[in-house]
């Protein structure tokens, strides 16, 4: 997936990407396969969604009504709103090889017979936006987009929508509202977007990294894809590490490398003078893992078994010179600010949690706050809020209270932060 990406370099143009084998999967799918065959192939490959939830991509596509292909318009949306704190993997793919994404989107749109596709892009990704627009106009000129693509009879228009900010836009139903020009507030599910999505029409929303895989799977087959991972799940993954390590960055590695290998080999280990205390394995909305989890494999099921989530696969490291209370406070402030305000537990609960954490951090906290924080974790847990925003926010808090409880207590007893 990252083969043709030169870090900080210029991406391949259409001509050079074709020379390197690009778009061959697109030609194969549109000329030689039926939409159902494409969906079956992706199902067989077990490609799990790379946006964080890990839902099987082929299954998502198969929920779209396909009767005689006549229920048009249908939409395909690429979720490129990457805003999870600590996450910077999709930017790498968007800036580094936009044609890989476009090639995958054409096949995916063909599989669900969508006539329009959107790339919902984070507002801050200006370089990615410029590269995408350039690549899309090249693809139109070459006949990969527009009417009757490569003589297949399939039509597709592709647009870039640059967002106006707000983390909640990454939630797929909030994204749909945002694309319709409304406030980005999540929708009730069901109906799922596959049945009633953008403008009330069948819609599939897939992550950038997921869509970048599609043409390679069509080219090389489901078994090839499965064999790439260490765990049998299928594929490689863009992993990342940020924090006080020697070599922070992002790398494409077989799905299932261990936490230890990621930190010690690829990120070069902790910086001199810093010790590892814990990490959020897949962005700010995942539970902490600590030293006992260093040999956990970074795959969806194995990280879940360790009590956390693979999420986006981009890890944030907590070191011994950073206060865990301040670290968690920063995260909860982010979630409080980014709450869309639609449902009460999230709108009211997150700012309350944020205030209590700030109070503990600056030395005015009380012991009873710890019990209130624990009860808030429960009240904002899964099933009590309209969407996954608040439950995601509670993950680092609940595990933080578990693993760094003594640090919280010390702040309250000493009435100050030991790190300040």
């Amino acid at each position, binding site marked *: 997936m990252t083969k043709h990406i030169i870090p900080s370099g210029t991406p391949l143009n259409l001509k050079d990407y074709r020379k390197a084998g690009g778009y061959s999967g697109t030609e194969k799918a549109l000329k030689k396969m039926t939409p159902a065959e494409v969906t079956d192939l992706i199902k067989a490959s077990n490609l799990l969604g790379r946006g964080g939830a890990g839902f099987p991509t082929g299954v998502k596509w198969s929920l779209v009504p396909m009767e005689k292909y006549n229920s048009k318009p249908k939409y395909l949306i690429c979720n490129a709103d990457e805003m999870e704190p*600590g996450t*910077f993997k999709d930017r790498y793919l968007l800036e580094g090889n936009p044609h890989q994404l476009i090639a995958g989107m054409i096949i995916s749109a063909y599989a669900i017979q969508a006539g329009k596709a959107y790339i919902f892009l984070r507002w*801050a990704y200006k370089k990615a936006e410029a590269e995408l627009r350039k690549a899309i106009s090249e693809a139109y000129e070459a006949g990969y987009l527009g009417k009757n693509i490569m003589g297949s009879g399939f039509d597709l228009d592709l647009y870039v929508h*640059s967002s106006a900010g707000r983390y909640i836009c990454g939630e797929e139903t909030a994204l749909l509202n945002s694309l319709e020009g*409304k406030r*980005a507030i999540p929708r009730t599910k069901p109906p799922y977007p596959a049945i009633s999505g953008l*403008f009330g029409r069948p819609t599939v929303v897939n992550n950038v990294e997921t869509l970048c895989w599609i043409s390679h799977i069509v080219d090389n087959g489901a078994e090839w894809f499965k064999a790439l991972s260490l765990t049998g799940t299928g594929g490689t993954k863009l992993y990342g590490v940020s*924090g006080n390590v020697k070599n922070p960055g992002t790398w494409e590695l077989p799905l299932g490398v261990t936490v230890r290998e990621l930190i010690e080999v690829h990120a070069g280990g902790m910086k001199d003078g810093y010790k590892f205390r814990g990490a959020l394995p897949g962005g700010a909305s995942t539970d902490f893992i600590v030293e006992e989890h260093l040999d956990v494999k970074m795959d969806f099921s194995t990280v879940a078994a360790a009590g956390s989530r693979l999420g986006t696969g981009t890890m944030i490291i907590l070191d011994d010179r*950073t206060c865990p209370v301040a670290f968690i406070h*920063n995260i909860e402030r982010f979630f409080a600010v980014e709450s869309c305000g639609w449902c009460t537990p999230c709108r009211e609960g997150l700012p309350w949690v944020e205030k209590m954490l700030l109070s503990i951090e600056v030395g005015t906290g009380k012991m009873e706050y710890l019990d209130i924080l624990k009860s808030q974790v429960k009240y904002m847990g899964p099933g009590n809020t309209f969407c996954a925003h608040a439950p995601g926010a509670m993950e680092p808090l609940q595990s933080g209270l578990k693993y760094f409880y003594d640090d919280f207590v010390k702040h309250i007893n000493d009435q100050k932060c030991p790190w300040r």
Partner: protein
Amino acid sequence: MLTEEEKKEILTEANQYPYPAAACIDALKIVQHHRGWVSDESVKDIGQILGISNEEVDSVATFYSRIYRKPVGRNVILVCDSVSCMVMGYEKIYDYLSEKLGISFGETTSDGRFTLLPNSCLGDCDHAPAMMINNDHYNLLTAEKVDELLDLYK
């Protein structure tokens, strides 16, 4: 009043959707691109051209963090204050900027040159701390680097 150029740009965006109201965010961004911010009058004008109420336009405008409903300076500095940048010391960068410019988050220098705003994760976590000035990304910030960067924006 929207300029002819703004109207043209808004209608071009509106054309890619099944109905014009869907272009509300695009319209707000277009106006802000030309004027720096979105005034009450612009909210009204956008409502008119897209066929929706002023209140609907304003509900959208006030939701999104990158739509400004108050005037901002000629240059907007967005300092990432999320967790990776916190670990890597964004607070020092903020303190330095704040002292140098004499303003806090949410404020504009008296000469109208800079507005300083906090911003959620900029997706540059492996090169933290990071910030943006207008549309430009900067990372691996130090006080010296901030000095050099500010000089580029008049």
